[in-house]
């Protein structure tokens, strides 16, 4: 990268010490970058290329796979597994909306109403992280168990009638239904929604609320016209941090769902690790990546916050 800049200095002997020092100085950022960037190139970019090549290979485990530019794999994968793709996007989107609806009041509470409880509440928000998320997801099996208190209450309140009308539950159970999977996804990614929301809410000058009140805005108007627009950066990064991992997740679908709730992550996982059909698995994960990247780009453009990084 600096090779183009080096030769003229080498042939200019006028003030060698100064030039040497400035060259060394100019190389500093590259030396700082080199190890980390190399790591990412070898273990992030190169694997993508390998996966791209795998996706257009044909063959079998016994005879080995060869690159045959068999793009048909993509089409086959898409036509065979589009229900799982749609389901993943639907579940992830539902979980993201639920995270926003559940997370916003809590972030608001911590930012504006908690007073001296603020630090304690923040600790409680990140505290679940300290227990392995698999253990906590397994706990939902107990909470949502058939005939357990939660299911009983939902039954008595006829909530399950509504959800089964929506096609999210079946009969008198929650476990092994879409509702359980969405519930688990929402639970697992809530902190990723709350923390960015809190960060952007906390930055808001509370005098703006007072000003809105002085101008006869009702609390709901203040929220709509002042607070919510100012918290948009948090909303955008929170929804991204929730939607992206949720769309590729297979843990919740596997532990809390059934074969009818398989998401695309489950398919990729079993193609790679159990069925060992590497080309299909590679094609599927490329399609997932493309869908997510396109959706994220469009979303960021529309939300109008480009300075996320």
């Amino acid at each position, binding site marked *: *990268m600096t090779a183009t800049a080096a030769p003229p200095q080498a042939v200019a002997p006028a003030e060698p010490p100064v030039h040497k020092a400035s060259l060394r100085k100019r190389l500093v950022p*590259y030396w*700082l970058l080199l190890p980390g960037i190399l790591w990412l190139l070898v273990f992030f970019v190169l*694997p993508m290329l390998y996966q791209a090549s795998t996706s257009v290979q044909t063959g079998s485990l016994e005879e080995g796979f060869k690159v045959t530019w068999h793009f048909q794999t993509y089409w086959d994968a898409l036509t065979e597994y589009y229900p799982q793709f749609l389901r993943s996007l639907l579940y992830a989107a539902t979980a993201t909306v639920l995270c926003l609806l*559940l997370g916003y009041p809590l972030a608001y509470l*911590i930012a504006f109403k908690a007073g001296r409880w603020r630090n304690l*509440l923040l600790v409680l928000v990140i505290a679940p992280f300290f227990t392995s998320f698999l253990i906590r997801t397994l706990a939902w099996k107990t909470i949502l168990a058939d005939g357990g208190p939660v299911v009983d209450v939902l039954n008595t309140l006829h909530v399950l009638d509504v959800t089964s009308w929506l096609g999210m539950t079946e009969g008198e159970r929650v476990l092994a239904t879409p509702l359980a999977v969405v519930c688990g996804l929402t639970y697992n990614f809530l902190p990723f929604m709350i923390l960015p929301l809190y960060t952007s809410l906390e930055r808001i000058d509370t005098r703006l609320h007072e000003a809105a009140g002085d101008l006869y805005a009702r609390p709901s108007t203040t929220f709509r016209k002042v607070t919510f627009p100012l918290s948009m950066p948090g909303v955008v990064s929170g929804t991204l941090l929730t939607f992206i991992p949720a769309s590729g997740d297979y843990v919740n679908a596997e532990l809390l769902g059934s074969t009818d709730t398989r998401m695309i992550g489950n398919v990729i996982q079993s193609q*790679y690790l159990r069925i060992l059909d590497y080309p299909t698995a*590679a094609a599927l994960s490329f399609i997932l*990546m493309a869908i997510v990247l396109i959706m994220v780009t469009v979303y960021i453009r529309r939300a109008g916050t480009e300075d996320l990084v």
Partner: protein
Amino acid sequence: MRWLRRNLVVIAGLGTLAYMILPNLVVTVFSFNNPTGRFNYAWQEFSLDAWKDPCGVADMCGSLALSLQLALWATIGATVLGTAIAFALVRYRFRARGAVNSLIFLPMAMPEIVMAASLLALFLNMGIQLGFWTILIAHVMFCLSFVVAAVKARVLSMDPRLEEAARDLYAGPVQTFVRVTLPIAAPGIAAGALLSFALSFDDFIITNFNSGNTVTFPMFVWGSAQRGTPVQINVIGTAMFVIAVLVVLAGQMVGNRRKNAQPK
């Protein structure tokens, strides 16, 4: 009714908090269970058996030790590499800045399973034996971006005049870095390191793809969800939770005391 309307946000917020804490309570309560079958999903009777013998399950404590070891090395690797990148990005102008920024951002904007699958494609193609080293490589890779983000945020908010002042007082570049820059950047580096540790220790998806026969603690829990969940899993979960909360609270108390000790 008016009270209800005025406190709607508080009630909704606390409701969400309850939703988030409930599973932890269940994990804790069920660490005192004495289940009849292989699975620990239904309450039977109170028992201290699992707490008296936390390592009584074959291979569990070994996997825990392995996970801690992995998390430690991954944290060190990612923190060193990531901090260097963050400093380069904030403090220097150079070519390919935009490309470097995107390269850092992409791993965070991608479903984990895509990275997991592509790394496996690399290792399979190159014939690399899956195990401790492949997991470590993967963990350093995905923790790196988070360290860069954390350190970058901190260094950006730093007043560059402090370093100029140090140089004006005849501190050399190394001295300036060690005595001024590093202490100010330390909270960002610490945040990045903590995040790396948590991400690596709790990682499942990438590990599941690239571990071969090596069993980390999350892999152990995953396996036990199929074979039967020992109560000891809940004991470990509860103990980790309690220790971490205590550490955080202690850290806050120390921080408060320091704040109070500062001359007014």
